[in-house]
């Protein structure tokens, strides 16, 4: 009887409770739409970013909230974070000019101009015209500077035996490097990068044939290079960049001799012209906080053929270019003893409009390419490591000045022959200092 009454009471309680449902949607929730709008008008970006994140977490994942949160991140210079929200926003309203424009600049300020161009299709004609005008402007760049090295001093001290029949040394004296380039967007998805560079390398060849002759002569190695690389933006994530580099190397003859014995020791004349060709390219996959690239190139340098493959990862931990890191590794098929070389670069903003980039490269760079064949290391001496720094100063929106310093450890080489006539070699390290200054003009 008691249990029956308990059941009835329970049933009555349940029925009464059921008649008054507790509705969670009636419980007061913050009016995220109004709050975020107010914060947006106040340009209170810090609070807007926090509130926007909360709103999105609470399921208010709609365009207005996404775009305001993205705008807050953008104004706080967290461009990768902004891109994340704005990408969501344009899936909800693909034609919104404001969201697309912010995303355009968020991509641009994280070094993804090609991907930014993909957004131009989503903009109204007027806005598209305005942004296209800026986007299609050409960029000219110029870099030049001298190369100094300690080779002449060091190579004189390479320990070679006294009983030499013959010895031969090549020493680098100095060099001058000049690069001029032009980047031109062609249409929305294609950017053409063309460059021409020239290096003048002064060297010395000296030979000593015991009891016969001693010859020494300065000579110049002149190399003129042409580079063309169209970058094709396949979609907002993938960029395909083929590259072709052609280099003509002219080596002057330092001296000659009519004497038959001397001729025998000197061997073939070294004054010769080489036509060098590098063909390949890389593919870049870009996300908001990182990008990965892979590349492969076929090199035909000084009559030697080889393949090089490279991979690199760039990370933007702060979501902008105030701090970035690039780690790259390359494999060169023809260098059996040391086929790998690796580069680590760290760049960061130092002062207002000034960036500093530091990098270290370990490995042998003989006949290798870097930066998608923008740099050809056509060198005959083995390198051990390279340390480099690059100071970037944005003079204004159009002009950028750069100062680059590179320090390389190379191996100086001496050939010699003793009484057994076998050609031997001796090495000694020497150091190269390369200082170049550059200017980039983004025409507006």
């Amino acid at each position, binding site marked *: *009887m008691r249990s029956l009454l308990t059941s009835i009471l329970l049933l009555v309680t349940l029925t009464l409770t059921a008649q008054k449902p507790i509705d969670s949607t009636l419980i007061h929730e913050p009016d995220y739409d*109004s709050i975020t709008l107010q914060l947006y008008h106040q340009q209170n970006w810090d609070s807007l970013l926090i509130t926007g994140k909360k709103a999105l977490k609470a399921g208010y994942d*709609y*365009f207005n909230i996404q775009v305001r949160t993205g705008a807050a991140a953008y104004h706080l210079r967290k461009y990768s974070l902004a891109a994340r929200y704005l990408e969501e926003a344009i899936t909800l309203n693909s034609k*919104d000019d404001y969201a697309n424009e912010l995303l355009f600049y968020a991509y641009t300020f994280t070094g993804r101009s090609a991907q930014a161009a993909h957004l131009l299709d989503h903009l109204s004609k007027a806005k598209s015209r305005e942004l296209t005008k800026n986007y299609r402007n050409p960029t000219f760049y110029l870099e030049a500077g001298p190369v100094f090295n300690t080779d002449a001093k060091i190579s004189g001290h390479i320990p070679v035996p006294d009983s030499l029949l013959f010895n031969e040394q090549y020493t680098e004296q100095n060099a001058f490097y000049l690069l001029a380039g032009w980047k031109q967007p062609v249409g929305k998805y294609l950017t053409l990068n063309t460059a021409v560079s020239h290096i003048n390398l002064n060297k010395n060849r000296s030979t000593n044939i015991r009891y016969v002759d001693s010859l020494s002569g300065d000579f110049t190695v002149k190399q003129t290079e042409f580079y063309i690389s169209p970058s094709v933006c396949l979609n907002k994530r993938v960029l395909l960049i083929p590259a072709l580099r052609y280099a003509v190397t002219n080596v002057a003859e330092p001296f000659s001799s009519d004497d038959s014995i001397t001729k025998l020791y000197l061997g073939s004349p070294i004054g010769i012209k080489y036509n060098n060709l590098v063909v390949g390219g890389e593919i870049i996959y870009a996300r908001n906080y990182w990008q990965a690239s892979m590349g492969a190139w076929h090199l035909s340098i000084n009559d030697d053929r080889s393949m090089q493959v490279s991979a690199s990862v760039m990370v933007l931990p702060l979501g902008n270019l105030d701090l970035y890191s690039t780690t790259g590794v390359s494999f060169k098929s023809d260098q059996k003893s040391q086929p790998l070389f690796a580069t680590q670069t760290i760049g960061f903003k130092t002062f207002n409009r000034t960036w500093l980039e530091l990098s270290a490269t370990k490995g042998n760079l003989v006949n290798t390419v870097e930066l998608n064949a923008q740099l050809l290391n056509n060198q005959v001496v083995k390198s051990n490591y390279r340390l480099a720094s690059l100071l970037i100063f944005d003079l204004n929106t159009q002009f950028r000045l750069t100062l680059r310093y590179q320090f390389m450890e190379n191996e100086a080489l001496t050939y010699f022959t003793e009484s057994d006539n076998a050609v031997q070699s001796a090495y000694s390290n020497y150091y190269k200092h390369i200082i170049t200054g550059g200017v980039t003009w983004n025409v507006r």
Partner: protein
Amino acid sequence: MERSIKMKIIVSLFLLLMLNTASAQNKVSLPKAFAESYAYEQKYEYLKAIESIKKVYKTDSYEMNLRLGWLYYQAKNYKESLNYYNKAIMILPLSIEAKLGYAFPAYAMGNKELVIKKYKEILAIDPNNYYGNYRLGSLYFERQDYQEANRHFDKLINLYPFDYDVMIMSAWTYFRLNKLREAKVLFNKALLNRPDDVSASEGLSLIK
């Protein structure tokens, strides 16, 4: 034993009575609940209006879900509004009114892709639907896709030749498409409907 049977009968009768009372309460209170919600809505007390419906709410009721969708939209709780309009659409998938309703909060959220999708669904059911064509045309006009906007307004101008809204939107669309002769005719017609209309007069002044 006899006493126990008696008690069971009493309890069963009590339970039956309770259920009947509850059911009667629902039947009686349904129109009352709606009436109450309309009254609150008129006073802009949307949360109370929502509460009135919630008291009698049944998940499978198209009308209640539709009403809640609207009231939540008025209360600017767009997330919930979409939720209830969605429920209404799931109950009656061919309902155009629920889809039109759904477009309100979606538009307020800025989710225009969703709005376009919904209007396209409406036009798939009813290709000549006035609101579907008019609002979709207006959205394309806003996006400066005048060709697409014209497709919808052109349809409406044939169905509602003297409707002011259709005439004026169609006139401006022709104007943007640089079809000035057609635009002029429609601006003039709009002035016949609303002789002091500022928009039509402005359009004509731009053509002249």
